[in-house]
């Protein structure tokens, strides 16, 4: 999950489903039968507004031109909007803020005046409203004829984009933690969690926009700065078939925030989750001691608590012109976890504090101009971030980070047909990952036998070799667009724009003591206090003979000047994109949305240009067809390409990495190979490979010469084909079926170009360049065989029939490829490459999810959210003896060898089998009751009870897929579902 929000652990992702599998299978069956077709309302991307459009007909059914129409809304329109129908009788109100109280008035002499209410406008969507005039009778001559009818745009004939819009009210009534980045997972095709994989893409492809500003973390794809949930008015989740104005290879969450209005509004809430409201994470004693378990721990059950006061308010500064909106939230989270390290039992406390603040000013000096300025900040501290038995207490780490972003948006309507928009802003984020006790001098020791890290924090991740990292991330965005209408063979809503972004990343990475040991066990010291978790005895110490039996290897880290010191690198990218798109309404039934965009990116780093400029073209073609011309059945189709041209994660990857010099312990002389003289005297292996006199006892990775980028690379891209049919089965309720095929090609990988391996791929027998003997040399490439492929079908239902509010889907998908993530090792070892083609780590074959709300007539709202995900693939792996930083495989991705009579038959490929994590099933519940009726209040006073993981499942979510000949934990639990959490929210608002 996003560590920003480690204070809220949602039991999503893959989880054991052993007890409930039959029920879930039945649920899938019912869903498949029940949801014959699914809705996927189309919406225009990147927009902060929606549209109201339709036709005006005379009593004979003929379109009527020159008819004046007026659109009003007390909530969001300070002044009425007016339009006139064209020659074809069509009208359109564009650039309309989302709201649910729009009123359309039509008054034509000789015809009955019409006042149509209850019109809802969704973010990025068109709300179709057709007006049928009737001849005015004498009785009607003095009154406005009022039609009360809800108009909810669940079908959108203007776009084929996939996804959903989650309104503020829907979000408030959904049983889910109030995290803005958690909304997308409710939508078909989006995986679970706060940084989900969408339709076979990488998790890092997801984007999070706030009021049109891309606030995505520039390096890892998470959100830059979380924001107060109550500050968001609408969430638009776009999962595919994107119009040309978007260049995204993954899902987009577009959060449009509140502006304030002429009425002063306030909203105060307090979320309470005392420790007694959360179940203890007691684990059955049958589970072996491993990460996250509580096996044999005599401590009382670990506590979980959460408290969060939130306040937001908005109103006018200058009536009808200048408005403000302010929000602030403070989270205090404690999550204890039972750990067992070296027989020391502990309830380790993962403490998180989060501060979220926001202020937004909106200025509308005229009906044609609107300016908004917003500032957002967050501060986040997480102590004991690892929080499991893989590390001792002194090897824990902590996160201190914070970010802020500012947004400046400007809209100007030149006239009813021409609109200029500017979306711009700056984001900043600082992240400091440090050892828990700020110990930057003691080397860590990883125990191969117990797979426990002691004495200091180990590597931060498989891709971050350091155990501390300080990073500053900047983004500047400038996106002007212009929209205009053209009439030719129908009507054309044209849009063109230029999109510029500058990203800058500065990163300092280092290793405590500039060394890290990898030992065979450790030497316990009976003199230490067993209740003191900070002492463990000894790891390998080349000066202490009693530790020699544990010595295996030590890695020393050097910066680019071959000094044992941290390394600071900077990277920056510039991306330029231009697009043009057309929404061509050919006739009442057919809309075609062609588009085209070109993107180019320049990736630069410490050594200049990292790559040759990357350029990608993105043609798009979508179409919608109203099958029966009744606005009830819509066929959609799309084909297009998006490109990843300006990824600063790639630019930073092109910088020199810490040079890792690994020295192997020599049993013969009980010493690491030690340089006897010269500038590196005393070092374990010379940091200069050309001076290595110890042969393969010294290995090198990283360093200034360790990596280069191949020129002329095709940037990563996704090609998409999709289609579907959506049908309104009841008022405001649509079901639909959609199929999607995606191919992600030319993904970034490091190709090792110097080592020559033996047939096993676990022994280096030579080097292509003898001058670089002993050194790993990487070339970063984007090859076509580095790919992912997705084929999926969604059955969806969405709508608000009666007192119900439905958003549910079933997705069947197949996700394969050679790449689990960028630089995941596919091309590091030619002997292993053949095994990388298989089921991708995000291959959830079946996903069933839904959030259903029922509003009673007496103020009680009930909500249920359910999720079922089939288990994600595992891939049995082994330590690669030739390079312990790599994994070795004996079967294709997604497979392994099951146990047979206590042994595994690795030498019989007929035993290869698909292996998966357990399936996951979860139910969350929420009840909201309005007390204002009891106390006769004009304001809303609400009590909300949220129960997450109502089944209190603590089943395994993920299993260990690494195998070792001794002490193997293959198949054992590595992560569990968080148990039941209940929280009470008290809320008062007007």
């Amino acid at each position, binding site marked *: 999950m996003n560590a920003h929000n480690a204070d809220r652990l949602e039991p999503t992702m893959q989880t054991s489903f052993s007890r409930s599998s039959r029920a879930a299978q039945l649920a899938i069956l019912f869903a498949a039968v029940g949801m014959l077709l699914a809705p996927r309302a189309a919406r225009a991307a990147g927009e902060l507004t929606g549209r109201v459009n339709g036709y005006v007909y005379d009593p004979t059914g003929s379109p009527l031109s020159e008819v004046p129409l007026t659109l009003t809304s007390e909530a969001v329109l300070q002044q009425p909007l007016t339009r006139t129908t064209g020659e074809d009788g069509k009208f359109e109100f564009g650039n309309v803020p989302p709201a649910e109280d729009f009123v359309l008035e039509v008054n034509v002499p000789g015809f009955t005046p019409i006042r149509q209410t209850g019109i809802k406008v969704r973010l990025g969507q068109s709300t179709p409203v057709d007006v049928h005039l009737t001849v005015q009778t004498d009785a009607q001559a003095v009154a406005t004829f009022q039609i009360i009818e809800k108009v909810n745009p669940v079908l959108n004939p203007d776009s084929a984009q996939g996804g959903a819009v989650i309104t503020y009210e829907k979000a408030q009534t959904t049983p889910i933690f109030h995290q803005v980045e958690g909304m997308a997972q409710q939508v078909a095709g989006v995986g679970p969690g706060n940084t989900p994989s969408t339709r076979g893409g990488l998790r890092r492809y997801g984007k999070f926009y706030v009021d049109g500003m891309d606030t995505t973390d520039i390096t890892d794809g998470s959100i830059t700065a979380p924001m107060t949930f109550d500050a968001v008015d609408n969430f638009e989740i776009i999962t595919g078939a994107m119009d040309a104005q978007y260049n995204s290879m993954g899902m987009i969450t577009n959060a449009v925030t509140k502006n304030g209005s002429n009425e002063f509004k306030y909203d105060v809430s307090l979320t309470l989750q005392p420790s007694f409201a959360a179940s203890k994470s007691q684990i059955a004693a049958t589970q072996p001691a491993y990460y996250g378990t509580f096996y044999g721990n005599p401590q009382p059950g670990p506590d979980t608590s959460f408290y969060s006061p939130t306040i937001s308010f908005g109103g006018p500064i200058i009536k009808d012109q200048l408005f403000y909106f302010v929000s602030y939230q403070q989270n205090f989270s404690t999550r204890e976890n039972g750990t067992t390290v070296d027989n020391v039992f502990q309830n380790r406390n993962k403490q998180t504090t989060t501060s979220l603040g926001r202020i937004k000013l909106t200025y509308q000096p005229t009906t044609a101009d609107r300016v908004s300025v917003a500032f957002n900040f967050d501060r986040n501290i997480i102590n004991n971030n690892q929080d499991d038995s893989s590390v001792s207490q002194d090897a824990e780490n902590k996160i201190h980070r914070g970010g802020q972003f500012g947004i400046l948006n400007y809209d100007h309507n030149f006239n009813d047909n021409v609109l200029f928009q500017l979306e711009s802003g700056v984001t900043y984020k600082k992240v400091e990952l440090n050892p828990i006790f700020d110990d930057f001098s003691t080397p860590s020791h990883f125990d191969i036998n117990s797979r426990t890290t002691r004495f200091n924090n180990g590597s931060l991740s498989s891709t971050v070799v350091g155990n501390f990292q300080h990073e500053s991330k900047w983004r500047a965005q400038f996106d002007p667009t212009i929209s205009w209408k053209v009439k030719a063979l129908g009507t054309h809503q044209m849009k063109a724009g230029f999109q510029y972004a500058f990203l800058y990343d500065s990163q300092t990475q280092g290793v405590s003591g500039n060394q890290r040991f990898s030992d065979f066990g450790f030497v316990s010291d009976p003199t230490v206090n067993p209740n003191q978790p900070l002492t463990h005895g000894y790891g390998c110490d080349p000066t202490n003979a009693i530790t020699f039996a544990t010595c295996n290897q030590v890695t020393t880290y050097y910066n680019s000047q071959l000094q044992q010191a941290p390394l600071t690198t900077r990277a920056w990218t510039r991306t330029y994109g231009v697009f043009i798109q057309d929404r061509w309404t050919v006739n009442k039934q057919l809309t075609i949305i062609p588009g085209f965009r070109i993107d180019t990116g320049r990736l630069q780093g410490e050594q200049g240009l990292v790559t040759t400029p990357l350029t990608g073209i993105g043609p798009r073609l979508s179409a919608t067809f109203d099958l029966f011309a009744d606005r009830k059945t819509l066929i959609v189709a799309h084909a297009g390409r998006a490109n990843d041209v300006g990824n600063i994660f790639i630019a930073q990857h092109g910088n020199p990495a810490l040079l890792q010099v690994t020295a192997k312990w020599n*049993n013969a002389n009980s010493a690491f190979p030690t340089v006897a003289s010269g500038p590196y005297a005393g070092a374990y292996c010379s940091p200069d490979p050309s001076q290595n006199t110890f042969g393969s006892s010294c290995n090198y990775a990283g360093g200034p010469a360790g990596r280069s980028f191949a020129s002329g690379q095709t940037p990563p891209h996704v090609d998409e084909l999709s289609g579907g049919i959506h049908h309104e089965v009841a008022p405001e309720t649509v079901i639909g079926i959609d199929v999607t095929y995606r191919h992600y090609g030319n993904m970034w990988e490091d190709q090792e170009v110097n080592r020559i391996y033996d047939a*096993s791929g676990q022994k280096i027998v030579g080097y292509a360049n003898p001058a670089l003997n002993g050194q790993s040399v990487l070339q970063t490439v984007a090859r076509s065989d580095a790919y992912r492929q997705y084929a999926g079908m969604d059955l969806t239902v969405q709508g608000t029939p009666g007192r119900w509010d439905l958003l549910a889907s079933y997705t069947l998908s197949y996700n394969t490829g050679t790449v689990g993530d960028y630089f995941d090792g596919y091309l590091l070892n030619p002997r292993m490459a053949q*095994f990388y083609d298989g089921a991708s780590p995000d291959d959830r074959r079946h996903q069933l999810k839904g959030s259903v709300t029922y509003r009673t007539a007496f103020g009680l709202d009930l909500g249920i959210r359910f999720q079922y995900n089939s288990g994600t693939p595992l891939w049995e792996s082994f330590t690669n003896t030739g390079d312990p930083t790599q994994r070795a495989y*004996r079967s294709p991705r997604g497979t392994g060898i099951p146990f047979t009579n206590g042994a595994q038959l*690795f030498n019989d490929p007929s035993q290869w*089998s698909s292996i*998966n994590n357990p399936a996951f099933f979860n139910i969350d519940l929420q009840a909201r009751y309005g007390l204002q009726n009891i106390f006769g209040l004009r304001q809303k006073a609400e009590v909300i009870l949220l129960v997450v993981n109502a089944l209190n499942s603590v089943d395994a979510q993920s299993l260990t897929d690494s195998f070792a000949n001794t002490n193997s934990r293959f198949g054992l639990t590595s992560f569990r579902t968080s148990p039941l959490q209940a929280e009470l929210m008290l809320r008062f608002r007007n």
Partner: protein
Amino acid sequence: MVQARAMRNSTLLQRALPALLAGCLAAGCGSDSSTTPDRYNGAIDPSGLDAKFTPITSAASTALKALCTGGAPTPCYPAQTGYAHGTPVRFYNVLNAGSAVKTGTVGKSGSLFPLVSTLQTQVFNFPNNCSKGRSIDPRFDAFTFDFQYPVFRSLPLVNTAFGVNVLPLVSLFSVSASGNTCNDIKSADSIDAGDFGAKASPAPVGVQLWAAVDASANFASLTSATTPSPAPVPAQLHQMWIHGLQGSYLDGGKVPVDANGNIVAMNGVILNGATFANAYDNQAVILPAVPGDDGYSPVVNLYQFAMPSGRTLGSYTDICPVGATCAANQVPFGSTTAPFNTIFIVSPQ
């Protein structure tokens, strides 16, 4: 427990189907044989070999680990020094340095060694019965395309019920085939199925000492006892296939077979002095012949000879036949006692 289900690899299917179709067209639809190269399944897991074929590791006894020092860090296959014809001879004692081989209960009644027909490991050997392909790129290619590696039907695995027959001896079968590029055939199943028209000889054509080994281990040098680590991969290390997996073996050469189908060993000597010598001790084994000599066999019965006082390991470097006049450095074979052990050796061919 990890959830497992039979693998249905669509990618494999996608790749295999066109090849199957091509093979069908080439060989004639309806034919049972295939001309699709066997899938390359990577390398064998040498840790699954019977313990007698695994290298000495850091977890081994001090005595065994000592064999690896000075030439090859663990894991290693040590080489030991013996003598033949008065000169030092280096060889691998392939049954894990000193493990005794008890073979007396198999084969012909009363015979020490098994009949060829009882050998468990069958190998299809047709090195040149293939079309040469492109030249190898050692960085990307794990195997060559200019000669065919032998195809093993089985390996002496830890979970294989070979019992006492866990020997480094294999019975060879020749194979005829056509249209196959070298190493297209990687599995005995393909030969059984007649892929590429493959047809094996009905009976063994010979016996070899081919010992499956862990190629990722270090190998002590056969040419020097002091070669810096890691020792170069010995010339005797060869490649083979089993179930599409690539493995390695040490080639100890041809094993003689008598007219009755019994494996023929040669008679060597193990020296015992003040302390009892192990079969893996340096200078303790005297061989009657070296590869190329008449009567050479990589299977060696060791007869015990108690050295007179004052003589040490290294004093004897040759064997004196029964009835002959013996020099000071020769062990009088007539003075040896019953066979103490049998070793299987790989020495430079």
